[in-house]
């Protein structure tokens, strides 16, 4: 306000505008630093020798860049992180593919087909979305143990397929599609399977891609369930593996950060390439869910 009395209204407005912009950019830059620093520190530490971790002065760029931490964890049979990486990739890929198939089938039926019980069954599915996950922890663990799926990938993949989110997501998508194409195919004599596979599914590529990214990330990042079910080190995935790593070494932070880098880099790379897509998927599904 004081600015406005000393300048003409127009230039006063400009000064105000400039100050506003400066404050916004400054705030955003500080937050950027806060977000980026821990990640930089993770990378930096992973390339440091243990002797350089506790020095009087901190070096952001290691005085002597070493790959020793990576070599050590990749070659230590008690923390087989290469194996864990492959396990994670396998579990996340299989879970994602199976979910896409199962959820698009179910979502299509709830959106487009008329059958007795449709509303009731779908209502039941939606109601369970409001149940706290903690209820399912112990009983599902007991089920998995009784089915002999402990320490097997099926023990993490199969329970994940019960999730309602993907069905709901695909149903919402199919409902938003115009019906005309499917009706035209029906008039041309296509049966329901043909309509689904040849007409509806090709139209739903964007939705399938969104669901695939969300489910892959969720499966790759899953910590608690993998920790419970995959106990043997040979079958562990990366997330519980990091906890094993933390327990296996004391104050070898370089090793642990090398482990964190190996777990983080795939998703960070995925994020860099699909950034806009991932953010938009989360914004829209978050609002709906």
């Amino acid at each position, binding site marked *: 306000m004081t600015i406005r009395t000393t300048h003409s209204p127009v230039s006063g407005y400009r000064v105000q505008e400039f100050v506003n912009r400066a404050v*916004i950019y400054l*705030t*955003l830059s500080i*937050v*950027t630093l806060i*977000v*980026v620093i821990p*990640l930089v*520190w*993770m990378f930096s530490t992973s390339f440091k020798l243990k002797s350089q971790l506790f020095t009087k002065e*901190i070096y952001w760029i290691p005085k002597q860049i070493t790959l020793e931490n990576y070599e050590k964890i990749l070659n230590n049979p008690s923390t087989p992180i290469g194996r864990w990486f492959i396990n994670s990739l396998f579990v996340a890929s299989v879970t994602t593919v199976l979910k896409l198939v*199962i959820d698009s*089938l*179910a979502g299509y039926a709830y959106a*487009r087909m*008329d*059958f007795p019980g449709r509303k009731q*069954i779908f209502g039941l599915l939606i109601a*369970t979305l*409001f*149940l*706290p*996950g*903690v*209820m*399912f*922890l*112990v009983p*599902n*663990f*007991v*089920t998995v143990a*009784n089915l002999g799926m402990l320490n097997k990938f099926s023990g993490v993949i199969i329970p994940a*397929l019960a999730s309602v989110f993907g069905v709901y997501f695909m149903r919402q998508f199919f409902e938003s599609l115009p*019906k005309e194409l499917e009706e035209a195919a*029906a008039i041309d004599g296509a049966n329901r*399977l043909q*309509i689904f596979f040849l007409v509806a599914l090709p139209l739903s590529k964007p939705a399938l891609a969104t669901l695939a990214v969300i489910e892959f990330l969720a499966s790759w*990042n899953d*910590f*608690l369930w993998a920790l419970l079910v995959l106990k043997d080190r040979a079958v562990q995935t*990366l*997330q519980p593996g*990091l*906890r094993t790593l933390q327990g296996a070494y004391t*104050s070898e*932070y370089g090793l*642990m*950060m090398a482990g*964190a880098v190996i*777990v*983080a880099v795939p*998703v960070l790379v995925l*994020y860099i390439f699909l*950034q*806009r897509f*991932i953010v938009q998927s*989360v914004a829209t599904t*978050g*609002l709906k869910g």
Partner: protein
Amino acid sequence: MSIALARKRKIPLTPYLFILPHLLFFAVFVGYPFFSGLYISFFQYDYLRPEATVFVGLQNYLDLFKPGSVKFIEFWNSVRVTFTFVIWSVPFLVLIPLGLAILLNSKLKGMTFFRAVFFSPWVLSCAVISLIWWWIFQSQGGLLNYYLKLWGFDTPRWLSTMPYAMISIVVATVWWTMGYNMVIFLAALQDIPTDLYEAAEVDGANAWQRFTRITLPLLQPVLVFIIITTIIASFNLLGQPMMMTRGAPAQPTGGGATEPVMLRIFTEGFVRPFQGSAAAMSVVVAIMMMTFSFVNFRLFRQRD
């Protein structure tokens, strides 16, 4: 509907075949455990020794409500820790993302870049971010205390003393998840028509008035949604204390000062062999969470 009419059969089998695969998994891992969890909670049960299973009736529940017993102290301590975490974290997890979203909505250059950066920690896993912050907060070699010392501040033992252990977990959580709420706020802000602001500006409303009279009322449904989902997410706190503090420091009366209820259940059912008792704890916690959701749902519905 015309598809259904054109292909009407006596018994529509195809739809059921479409939903069957999912429904099968749903029945086994969502439907069945809804009841079996309750059932297990009436037993003394260890999955490694199923032959030693003993029916104990309500004993697992009575233990949780018997003042002075170890289980009582440990369980209600962990409930208190969870509530403390919710109260300490949720304001930051709502207000910081809201502030950032408002700044990003300013239509200046480079906003998509900042949005991408601020959201990025969210794609990392709980284990990764816990490990990074655990290292940053270390007393020996930790980044934070190095700079605090350099600038002449106190250097607390972040991970093993209160309130610093709780603060560490809150900081790590805010850093990790703020981008998620921010993106949702931003999408909602972008849905507000700009001519509302222009009209208000013509009428002489200042920035604060435009915020309280236009932005906040129009944002209210999303705000309520975010507050509720954030509280529920904070109730589920587990990985950060598991890897950063291990529940430490110990409370003089029993339990850990940063041991939330999920970690308590994990310890009871999967470190110790008391799955019946862990199931009972889960039921009690689930009832608390559902009561909370229900109350909020009713409040939310009434206002609309």
